[in-house]
């Protein structure tokens, strides 16, 4: 779309690393071939994804405008960018930033790109990437060239590949670290980039590094593979290594990563990664993407068998000279300060607000006299002008030591403490000194329905609303609740990491009298600390418009009833999930449309909510259909399963979760066939025939995944459970029921007899 696109290649020829330049040329050729119809659309889709070029909402060319679903009149005669993806539809460009490390010039270039090709905003993601939204695919090679000229690649930012390798943003300056993991994360990122052993995965693969076990900055235990720094005495000398975890992941059903090795010497880091990649490539699921993450393989094989296979592969690897070469470079990695260490002058006059900002956004480094300053970005967003200002400050106060964080913020490292007042004044002038870093108001949210094709509800709209209210209430300054974490996803896919929040939400929908109503599932008691040490469980779906009130209730109650030193997680455990549900149960009903239409509109939107081209179905006129009643009863059962699990009744919990799914299937069968089989085997068979084989139950994106949860539970019914498998079955029951709600809504919307 940009008239200057043809000129940039010549302009930047001498500035791009030849390898990156060549890769971008190849991508540009692929674009040309696709335009000529010479590459299959599916192949092209994966090709562009591996370059970070993502689709965006409404790129099918269809959009519900609040009244009806309309075809967006894009120019005709162009190919698709992938199945059902219009060429001219705006998309997203993800920019990979290994371990979040950036210099000033890189920030400036991202600012330029945000202005010239996107909407003026750069977005920091929960994987320390940047994203630009509303980008035209024809501009992407130029964007890549301008990034390459400053040493950034977008390669493998998306697709079935090794995603951005993340690391604690305090690595190297952290007071609790065992050692600085930064050079190891960097080594891993660049070693695996484009590695031939990592090109045939069934799904994406995420790696994280943490300098210590206790703090949450890298969330190692929710990763496909995670490394925690460790030292061990070997032959009288202290040696560096890592505690290694595999098979973690959030997604629809979260899995805690398993301890793969208590101590892996640093020399084995790269070989192990290749061996794991080989096992994943060889044995990982390829056809069904819903079970293709490595967590499913680890679960299927069992940890010991998985380990054995990795060890076998490791034994068969031919040594790669880069293993040693890259390790030799590790000691040369060093970050240095620009200024001498300094002390914060206690008596010097300071700008208003400095103390609050200092208390919340400043971290005293392990190196005396230096501090790391967090720049809290609302919903991870920063303007081009602000990026340039951060670049200026990075040059003025540091040796350009900037990092992104998984909490969607930026940090400036190695600031002399004596400079803090001056830096604060400059950040404040740039409207970048909001004193909320890591607080309850520093909400993490995925893009949700704003731009994501899979979003069900507006995670960012809700996050913006909650943020505004929490700040107005001063919750970020209330010692009792200020450190709670809120995380929001627009759907069950967990990109907002809702499972590891004190209070998490994910978007769902409910049918109400022929209308679809935006809701959020409420999860409480997840753990952000200890590298995402435990996951929260769902309490119930709350209409989107009543979520702020639900949150307020939890905050009020925790503030007034917590015991001295009691964490929110312990508090939730003490009062119990049943009580949690009681606290918000009265908020769950939705008033009729004619009484309060605002419930039928999502946050930050003005259109009547829809999850598709939904009309008024056959049941219109009934206040509540029998299916609605039955599905509500199933949700109660799923919730009871949680309570049983909480009480340590593992088998009963799993059995109850299974029954919730079976009753959900019964409800749908009753609606579709008028039949109401009682026998579990008959329910299973009929559901399979009428809902799975016909694909009626299929989610547009997850396909038959949720039905498989029911089938798997049916197949194993009677087999013993452990707490983890029971917890998973409960999660799966909840997701099956969400899918049942959606399926029911689709059946209602279908033309009579259709």
């Amino acid at each position: 779309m940009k008239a200057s696109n043809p000129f940039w290649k010549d302009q930047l020829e001498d500035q791009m690393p030849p390898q990156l330049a060549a890769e971008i040329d190849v991508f540009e050729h692929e674009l040309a071939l696709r335009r000529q119809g010479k590459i299959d659309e599916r192949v092209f889709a994966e090709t562009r994804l591996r370059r970070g070029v993502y689709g965006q909402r409404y790129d099918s060319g269809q959009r519900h405008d609040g009244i009806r679903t309309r075809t967006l009149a894009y120019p005709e005669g162009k190919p698709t960018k992938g199945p059902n993806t219009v060429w001219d539809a705006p998309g997203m460009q993800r920019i990979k930033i290994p371990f979040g490390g950036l210099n000033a010039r890189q920030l400036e270039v991202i600012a330029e790109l945000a202005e010239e090709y996107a909407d003026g905003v750069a977005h920091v993601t929960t994987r320390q990437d940047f994203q630009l939204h509303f980008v035209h695919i024809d501009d992407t090679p130029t964007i890549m060239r301008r990034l390459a000229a400053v040493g950034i690649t977008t390669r493998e930012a998306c697709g079935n590949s090794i995603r951005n390798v993340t690391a604690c943003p305090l690595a190297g300056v952290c007071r609790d670290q065992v050692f600085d993991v930064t050079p190891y994360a960097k080594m891993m990122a660049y070693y695996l980039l484009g590695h031939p052993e990592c090109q045939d995965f069934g799904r994406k693969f995420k790696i994280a590094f943490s300098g210590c076990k206790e703090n949450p900055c890298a969330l190692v235990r929710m990763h496909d593979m995670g490394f925690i720094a460790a030292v061990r005495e070997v032959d009288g000398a202290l040696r560096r290594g890592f505690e290694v975890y595999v098979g973690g992941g959030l997604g629809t059903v979260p899995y805690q990563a398993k301890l793969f090795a208590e101590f892996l010497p640093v020399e084995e880091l790269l070989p192990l990664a290749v061996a794991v990649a080989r096992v994943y490539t060889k044995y990982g699921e390829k056809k069904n993407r819903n079970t293709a993450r490595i967590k499913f393989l680890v679960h299927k094989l069992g940890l010991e068998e998985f380990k054995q296979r990795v060890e076998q592969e490791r034994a068969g690897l031919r040594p790669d000279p880069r293993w040693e070469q890259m390790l030799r470079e590790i000691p040369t990695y060093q970050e240095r300060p620009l200024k001498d260490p300094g002390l914060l002058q206690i008596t010097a006059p300071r700008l208003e607000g400095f103390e609050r900002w200092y208390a919340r956004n400043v971290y005293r480094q392990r190196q005396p006299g230096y501090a790391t300053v967090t720049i809290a970005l609302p919903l991870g967003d920063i303007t081009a002008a602000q990026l340039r200002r951060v670049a200026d400050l990075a040059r003025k106060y540091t040796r350009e030591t900037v990092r992104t964080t998984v909490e969607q913020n930026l940090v400036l490292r190695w600031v002399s403490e004596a400079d803090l007042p001056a830096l604060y004044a400059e950040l404040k002038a740039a409207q970048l000194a909001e004193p909320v870093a890591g607080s309850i108001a520093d909400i993490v949210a995925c893009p949700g329905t704003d731009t994501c094709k899979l979003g069900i509800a507006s995670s960012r709209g809700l996050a913006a609303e909650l943020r505004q209210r929490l700040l107005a209430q001063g919750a970020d300054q209330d010692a009792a609740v200020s450190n709670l974490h809120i995380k929001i996803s627009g759907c069950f896919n967990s990109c907002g990491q809702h499972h590891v929040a004190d209070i998490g939400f994910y978007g769902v929908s409910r049918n109400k009298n022929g209308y679809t109503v935006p809701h959020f599932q409420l999860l409480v008691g997840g753990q952000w600390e200890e590298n995402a040490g435990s996951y929260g469980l769902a309490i119930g779906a709350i209409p989107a418009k009543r979520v702020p009130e639900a949150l307020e209730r939890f905050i009020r109650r925790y503030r007034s009833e917590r015991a001295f030193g009691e964490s929110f997680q312990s508090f939730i455990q003490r009062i119990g999930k049943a009580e949690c549900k009681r606290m918000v149960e009265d908020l769950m009903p939705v008033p009729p449309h004619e009484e309060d239409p605002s419930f039928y509109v999502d946050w930050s939107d003005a259109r009547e909510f829809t999850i598709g081209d939904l009309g008024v179905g056959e049941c219109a006129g009934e206040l509540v259909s029998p299916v609605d009643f039955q599905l509500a009863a199933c949700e109660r059962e799923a919730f009871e399963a949680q309570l049983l699990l909480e009480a340590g009744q593992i088998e009963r919990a799993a059995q109850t979760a299974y029954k919730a799914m079976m009753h959900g299937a019964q409800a749908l069968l009753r609606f579709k066939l008028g039949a109401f089989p009682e026998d579990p085997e008959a329910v299973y068979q009929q559901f399979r025939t009428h809902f799975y084989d016909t694909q009626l139950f299929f989610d547009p994106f997850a396909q038959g995944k949720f039905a498989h949860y029911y089938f798997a539970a049916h197949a194993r019914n009677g087999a013993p459970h452990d707490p983890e498998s029971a917890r998973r079955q409960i999660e799966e029951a909840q997701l099956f029921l969400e899918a049942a709600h959606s399926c029911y809504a689709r059946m209602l919307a279908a033309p009579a007899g259709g």
Partner: protein
Amino acid sequence: MAKQPDHINVKIFALEPTPEDLAGAIPVFHRWIQQNAAPELLIDVADYRHVPAGPGVILVGLEANYSLDLTENRLGLLYNRKKPVAGSLEDKLRQAYEAASAACRRLEQEPEFHRKLHFDPNSCEVIFNDRLLAPNTLETFERLRSGMEQFFAELWGRGTFALERVGEPRERLRVRAAVRSSLTPLI
């Protein structure tokens, strides 16, 4: 070789007092999509009200975006032309200014903003949204000056206005144009 500038943005500033909240822009822009209220293909609405001095609320289109923009904490209607426009610089400026101006008039009439939002017909900012075609240098500014003068003379009358290059070198080339009586201190 001097390349022809393209992708011209025009921001028409709002007059004080401006609305405290831009929430009203969300239903307005969604209605514009429903009503095909602009010549461009209108796609979606992006809400950036949470970003200080940011793009505010954007009506995203294929050929251009419209936004109630808060850059530099100054509210205005920004027309961001994305698809190249044929013709001379004056033609491109005219297209962008007229599109922005039409959107301003329409916004002023919308119930959410009626009597609450007024735009200044005597000043605007022109942004050349391409650092390669229009590098932010004095030389480019001088090269483009005559084309801009021709267009603004047509709009406001010859000799009645001033053009000033604003901002810092890393920004895109930005030119503030204002009828002399309405000149405000430039940043």
